[in-house]
């Protein structure tokens, strides 16, 4: 296939990827969007196979390797996609990011070893300066994405404590590694690509910095981390796209890069924290220690209720707003919750769901879980759309969420969560909290809502409590 035709087809697949993202502006068009994405990918792969860089070289060995690789990868991917539980989506996405990062490193390494196949050699020998810079950036970002995502995966999947782990002098360490990476890139460029050791040292240091960057970041900051790694995987792809002079890769890389960056921004805004403070890590650790130190001061009385009380209150309410959080995901309570909502609706109660931007462990996590439990998406509302409804609601049913409802975010300037947008459940006539215990949330801040007269605490595992409420409603 001639190079111009190939470039045009890559452009077509780039456009199809744009349409794939465009489709996600509404659930109704999203499925068509996903199909555009698949068509775009097929076009890109077929174009490459028929291009002047692949077709003339094709022999039995190459065909065999490609078929086997596609079969292994495709098979693993299909099995994972079929089996994964919706509650595990954050881990899965982190794992997928790591694969994109590693693929970027491998492709850059291949281009480094046989630059002539990619047309990036200098006439007098060696590799072009521009290509070395693109490759170096691609490798560094790819390697950071890979090791960072592995750490994020381990934290989300519970293979590793979700608490932030603070290495001594970590900012100095990261800074020193960053300087070393730049120095190695310079050595690589000056040697016109001859310094193979510098290439691998650069790769190795980037793997290390991926680990040291993510380790200090705590579990509830994971929505930002996952989005950020999403963005990195895009920039790595774009970097490699420049090396390969491939428009499909450049377009896709920039789409994914900006997508991840926007999601990180939305998540940071949802917590009223700066991106820098999340990246520097350590949040929750200091505040948690402070709360533990001062937590013994008093045991204030709370009103505790039974599942039957809750069932009675909600059945006799006019409207109930359900506020799900990470605790709902952990105990897989979404199906029981939907059942409860159905019973309420049968009693003529108006039920809606309120989702905080940072509820769960990744952007949109709660929406997927509710969708999985067959909750219609037009009953699910974002923070800005639902907050005005709380004053007219009889019951706010908070299940597995805490910090995102804490009025201290509005009133207490000294609180670490001050300024964070919250779901104003305190304005509802009655607040029901389903919680495992009295512990404070991720931010280590006590929630004064627990002690209010119109609050009732329902202690226990989210799923069990909801199931008992469902039983309580039946009689």
């Amino acid at each position, binding site marked *: 296939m001639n190079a111009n035709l190939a470039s045009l087809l890559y452009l077509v697949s780039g456009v199809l990827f*744009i349409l794939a*993202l465009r489709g*996600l502006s509404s*659930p109704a068009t999203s499925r068509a969007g996903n199909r555009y994405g698949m068509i*775009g*990918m097929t076009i*890109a*792969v077929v174009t490459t*196979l028929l*291009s002047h860089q*692949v077709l003339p*070289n094709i*022999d039995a060995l*190459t065909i065999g*390797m*490609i078929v086997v*690789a*596609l079969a292994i*990868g*495709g098979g693993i*991917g299909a099995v994972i*996609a079929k089996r*994964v539980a919706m509650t595990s989506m954050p881990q899965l*996405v982190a794992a*997928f990011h790591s*694969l*994109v990062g*590693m*693929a*970027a490193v*491998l*492709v850059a390494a*291949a*281009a480094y*070893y*046989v630059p002539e*196949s*990619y047309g990036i050699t200098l006439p007098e020998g060696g590799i072009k300066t521009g290509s070395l810079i693109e490759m170096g950036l691609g490798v560094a970002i790819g390697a950071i994405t890979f090791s960072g995502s592995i750490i994020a995966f381990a934290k989300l999947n519970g293979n590793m404590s979700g608490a932030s782990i603070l290495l001594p002098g970590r900012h100095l360490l990261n800074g020193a590694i960053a300087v070393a990476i730049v120095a190695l890139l310079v050595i690589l460029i000056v040697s016109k690509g001859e310094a193979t050791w510098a290439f691998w040292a650069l790769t190795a240091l980037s793997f290390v910095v991926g680990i040291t960057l993510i380790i200090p970041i705590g579990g509830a900051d994971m929505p930002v981390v*996952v989005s950020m790694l999403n963005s990195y995987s*895009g920039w790595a*792809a774009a970097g490699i796209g420049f090396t*390969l002079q*491939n*428009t499909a*890769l*450049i377009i*896709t890389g*920039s*789409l*994914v890069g*900006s*997508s*991840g960056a*926007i*999601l990180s921004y*939305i998540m940071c805004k949802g917590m009223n924290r700066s991106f820098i403070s999340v990246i520097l890590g350590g949040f929750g650790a200091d505040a948690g220690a402070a709360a533990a130190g001062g937590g013994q001061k008093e045991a204030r009385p709370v009103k505790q209720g039974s599942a039957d009380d809750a069932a009675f209150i909600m059945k006799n309410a006019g409207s109930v707003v359900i506020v799900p959080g990470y605790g709902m995901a952990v105990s897989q309570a979404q199906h029981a919750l939907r059942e409860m909502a159905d019973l309420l609706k049968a009693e003529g109660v108006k039920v809606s769901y309120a989702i905080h931007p940072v509820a769960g462990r990744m952007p*949109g*996590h709660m929406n997927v879980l509710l969708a999985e439990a*067959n909750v219609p998406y*037009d009953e699910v509302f974002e923070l800005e759309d639902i907050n005005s409804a709380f004053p007219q609601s009889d019951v706010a049913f908070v299940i597995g969420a805490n910090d995102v409802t804490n009025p201290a975010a509005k009133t207490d300037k000294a609180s670490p969560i001050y300024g964070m947008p919250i779901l104003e459940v305190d304005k509802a006539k009655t607040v029901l909290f389903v919680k495992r215990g009295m512990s404070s949330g991720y931010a280590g801040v006590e929630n004064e809502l627990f002690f209010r007269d119109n609050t009732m605490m329902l202690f226990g595992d989210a799923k069990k409590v909801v199931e008992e409420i469902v039983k309580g409603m039946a009689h």
Partner: protein
Amino acid sequence: MDHFISLLSIFVLAVFVGYYVVWSVTPALHTPLMAVTNAISSVIIVGALIAVAVPAMGSASWASKIFGFIAVVFASVNIFGGFMVTSRMLAMYKKKDKK
């Protein structure tokens, strides 16, 4: 015009397109958005395929073939896994039944 400049132009414009397109994505679909961006960023498979197809002559080209092979495996896990899990999620988003 240098080829690099035209690629850079595509890059900059695509960043802007991405910016506006992603802001229009409804927050309810942010998880599928991440899954599908994962799948499409695996278009890096085109680089991996070129690496596998390098004619096997000498150690450097074998390095390329092997790196390429592993990269094709990783990228295809993502492509198949990413698109399939996205469609599985999107199939769950339903409107209220009109009874």
